[in-house]
């Protein structure tokens, strides 16, 4: 045990002296919650944005009634003349409406009168504002249509055989689930990013520095060496994950979620109880994978590929509505994500599920450590060392 601690202490000291790598290891955990707060605030601001639509109009004189109608609906109309580019005409407004000179004539002859709307679709605000304008113009068009039909003695009801009324019953919950998956996903990434640097430095780093030969010539088993190295990766994984979870939960609480219509129930202890055994597993996997690499760079590439695993699992659950059941729910990542989702959406948290998930993670972690120890003892290791 003292030899394991000897390796642990050395690796911890050695790794923490590489300030840049330590910082980049924990950057995800430190800045993740910050980015989350900013994103949530931005979203809330957008949702709460009830300012009037700014509409630039060219040829206002050809459709004064329409413009009056729009003003009446709360649209702020800015008159523009027919000069310059579309960009200059739109200016600060959300949308540009161009009324051509022939509009008046066609309109009075009850022929379809063309209007042109221009909008920058890459701007989300402007884009959604253009849909509001489309709806307003459609309503105006309906009013005119009703009047024209009436003038010709046809009741407008006659041309409306079906009146479909729709109601959205699933959106709120579904959106919460999607939102929760996205955010919890972030927690699943935390151990990957936090222990990556330490896992590489203690394994592939050792090979790259060519310090493996003198080390392996010491009276110490490769299991003790790997355990000491793994413990450093675990330390960073656990610290990073804890910062992420505590910071993330605080970010949720600080964010104006009510404006977004999202209610999430995040409990630090449930999250950590669920994630910390998983951090042990992630660190062990990373140590095992990085041990195969001969250089820091090679290990970094391989571990980045490994990081795609939770990304893919998360994506799968975001896209599909499948609820993991039985043994399937015990698969690492699947299980963790499921427990966190249940908890966040206010469902009952099964302590048994957390314990079982934790056990599975720890057992697999130990297997990875054992395989890594054997790998370290193989002659292959000395080839480039």
């Amino acid at each position, binding site marked *: 045990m003292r030899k394991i601690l*000897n390796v642990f202490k050395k690796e911890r000291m050695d790794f923490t*002296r590489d300030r840049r790598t330590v910082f980049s290891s924990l950057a995800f955990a430190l800045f993740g919650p910050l980015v989350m707060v900013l994103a949530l605030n931005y979203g809330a601001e957008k949702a709460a944005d009830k300012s009037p639509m700014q509409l630039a109009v060219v040829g206002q004189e050809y459709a004064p009634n329409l413009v009056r109608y729009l003003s009446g609906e709360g649209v702020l109309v800015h008159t523009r003349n027919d000069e310059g580019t579309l960009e200059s005409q739109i200016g600060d407004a959300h949308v540009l409406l161009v009324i051509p000179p022939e509009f008046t004539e066609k309109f009075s002859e009850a022929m379809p009168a063309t209007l042109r709307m221009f909008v920058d679709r890459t701007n989300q605000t402007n884009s959604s504002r253009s849909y509001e304008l489309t709806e307003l113009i459609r309503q105006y068009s309906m009013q005119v249509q009703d009047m024209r039909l009436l003038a010709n003695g046809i009741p407008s009801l006659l041309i409306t055989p079906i009146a479909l009324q729709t109601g959205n019953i699933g959106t709120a919950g579904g959106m919460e689930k999607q939102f929760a998956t996205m955010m919890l996903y972030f927690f699943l990434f935390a151990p990957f990013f936090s222990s990556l640097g330490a896992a590489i430095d203690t394994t592939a780093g050792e090979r790259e520095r060519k310090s493996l030969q003198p080390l392996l010539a010491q009276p110490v088993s490769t299991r003790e060496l790997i355990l000491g190295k793994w413990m450093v990766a675990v330390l960073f994984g656990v610290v990073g994950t804890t910062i992420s979870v505590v910071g993330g939960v605080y970010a949720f609480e600080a964010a104006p979620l009510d404006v977004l219509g999202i209610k999430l129930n995040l409990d630090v202890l449930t999250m950590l109880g669920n994630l910390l055994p998983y951090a042990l597993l992630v660190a062990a996997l990373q140590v095992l994978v990085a041990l195969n690499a001969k250089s820091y760079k090679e290990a970094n590439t391989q571990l980045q590929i490994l990081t795609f695993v939770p990304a893919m699992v998360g994506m799968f659950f975001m896209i599909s509505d499948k609820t993991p059941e039985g043994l399937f729910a015990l698969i690492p990542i699947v299980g963790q994500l499921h427990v966190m989702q249940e908890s966040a959406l206010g469902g009952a948290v099964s302590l048994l599920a957390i314990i079982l998930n934790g056990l599975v993670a720890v057992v697999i972690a130990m297997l990875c450590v054992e395989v890594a120890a054997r790998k370290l003892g193989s002659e292959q290791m000395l080839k480039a060392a």
Partner: protein
Amino acid sequence: MIEVQNIEKTYGDVYAARDVSFSARDGEITTLLGANGSGKTTTLRCIAGLIKPTKGDAKIDGIAVSQDPIKAREQLGFVADEFGLYGRMTAREHLTYFAGFHNLFGSEAEAAAEKTIQILHMEEIADRRTEGFSLGERAKVALARALVYSPSNIILDEPTRGLDVMSIRLLRELLRELRSDGRTILFSSHIMAEVEDLADRVVMITDGCVVADGTPDELKQKANSHNLEEAFVTLTSVQGRAA
């Protein structure tokens, strides 16, 4: 005392060592002399238990490496062909870390490190990080790391490679001191002058086989030549013809 018995090591069809047997005795400097690729490093790695021989075995102070590699390594200091230092750690930290593998912790490890630093006259570099050390300084740290736990056997794989004249002289003096301490010293080399100057016993190895084993004078006599270089050429080419 290091005993090597009929070590053979193959990688597929390739022989890295065919038949290597010799003994390195206490209080003697034994040299493994051979050309590049003759099987010196393979033999040393087998003794340190870093690789498993296909046949044969090595014993360190009577403990078979194949039976109990960890126990066998307790009395072995190994200086590899690559010094492999940790750039962010000081020389002293290297020593306390390696002392830890020999159950020297805390003040005991500190004391062992301090003693080694004094023996190797490395006070000036002891508390500097090894990043940016010269080759000679790196060699010193690698050697100190193998000596800090006072092993009775020391193996060095081409330790003078890349060192300047002053560092080589220092190393020679140190090896002589260790010899007078009664330790077993085994080092590999292909530099005749160095071997002739230092070795009590020379084991000539070529093509993975030991072709001659004796004191430098015995070998010269056997080859009927005036210097070790000629003796080496004669003795290894006899083996070459025989093969």
